């Protein structure tokens, strides 16, 4: 979609693949910050990945999600494939519902994103509980809630490079 939202009159520049890669790398770096056992922190990579899957389903998809998931598994020292599985499912849901989600405004978009992020976390929880790990408490799901709240601000930030200066042209249809 070339507009910030369906109701907008502005046309966006095409996205640069380098910027997508850069934003994913930044999210990965923020995720890898050694902040100790603060489980309520949002999974930035899942959020940014979800954003690009919704926004550019032809560029970012399940393959990217799988690769990033493996990197996260190595970085977190968690079970190999745990993040990969969650991210692949997240990317599938996001690309599938991409057309539908973009039709809504920011609040309703967040309401679509929330079950996807919670679902991804639940997948990881189930995988680890089956593998005999310790349940970290309900605070674990706070990350998904915070990420949902961040959906709109992060979305604006990620679309910024695509905005072009507004030119007033009364005769242009959109």
């Amino acid at each position, binding site marked *: 979609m070339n507009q910030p939202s369906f109701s907008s009159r502005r046309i966006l520049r095409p996205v640069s693949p380098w910027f997508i890669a850069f934003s994913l790398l930044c999210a*990965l*770096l*923020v*995720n*890898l*910050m*050694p*902040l*100790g*056992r603060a*489980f309520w922190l949002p999974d930035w990579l899942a959020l940014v990945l979800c954003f690009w899957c919704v926004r550019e389903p*032809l560029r970012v*998809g*399940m*393959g990217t*999600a*799988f690769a990033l*998931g*493996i*990197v996260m598994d*190595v*970085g*977190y*020292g*968690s*079970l*190999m*494939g*745990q993040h*990969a*599985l969650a991210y*692949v*499912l997240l990317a*599938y849901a996001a*690309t*599938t519902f991409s057309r539908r989600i973009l039709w809504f405004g920011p609040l309703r978009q967040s309401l679509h994103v929330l079950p996807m992020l919670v679902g991804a976390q639940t997948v990881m*929880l189930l*995988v*680890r509980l089956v*593998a*005999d*790990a*310790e*349940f*970290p408490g309900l605070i*674990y799901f706070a990350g998904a809630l915070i990420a949902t709240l961040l959906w709109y601000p992060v979305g604006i930030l990620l679309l910024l490079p695509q905005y072009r200066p507004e030119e007033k042209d009364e005769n242009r249809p959109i």
Partner: protein
Amino acid sequence: MVSPVAGHQPPPFFRRGPAPLVRLVLLVSASLTLIVVDHRLHYLELVRQGLSVMTTPLQVAAGMPVKGVRSAGEYFADLAHLQDENARLRREQTELATIRLRQEQLDQENARLRALLDMRERVQIDARVAEVIYAVRDPFSRRVVIDKGLTHGVEPGSPVTDDLGIIGQVTRVYPLNAEVTLISDKDQALPVQVARTGVRAVMFGAGSGLLELRYLAADVDLREGDRIVTSGLDGVFPPGLPVAAVKSVDRDGVGGFVRILCVPVAGVEAHSTVLILKPGKPVDPDTAAAGTAPAADKPADKAPKK
């Protein structure tokens, strides 16, 4: 109805690779395979080490701002506080020096007495100092990463202690750092012994930072405040190292076992400087039963060395 190239479909207008559902099934099965292979068969350690070469620089980069903020905080720490600490450390140093002098003499005496009793010489523990860099972000386990790795000669399985007692065991070694599973992790088991009575047991993490003594009969002689030390039965952990103190004994346990919760002696989740000990050889039950049983049944082991 004969197409120019028999059996071939016309090329699609837009090439998008396999259908999304096909891709989903492929990648999900790949992930599930990885999970099973990693959890059940542990074949992926080499892959993990290889990929860690890529992720370690990322982690170092991600750690820089955190480290910067932290060191800035330390820089502004109160001078008086530092002086206090300095004085306290100097005092402790003097105290320790006297103890060390006495210890040398005791060691010699001990060696002579042991030789007299024809006992096995106790293995000299060789230790290496390491710094805890960060706690692993995985919410489902309790692990920390230390700044010594394969290149520094850290071996998987090495016991890790701080100045007060056992904090965990090295479970994964990367080229430049290593992962230590803390004793409060649910999967980490440790063969221990009650210092007062000599009862042997196995200790597990109980979650929430506490430890649990499992598989003890309901009538076991155990009180609150009892000290728990390593038994050395596994041959990996040296015997007699302090582990925990009993916090609560619940004798109404289900199934005839008593539920015993313990508080770790060492600062298990307070991350600071740690010692990596050299792991002993794990005892093979067959050879141990056939030959002379190691340290396990010596009454001398019951009294922990202070």
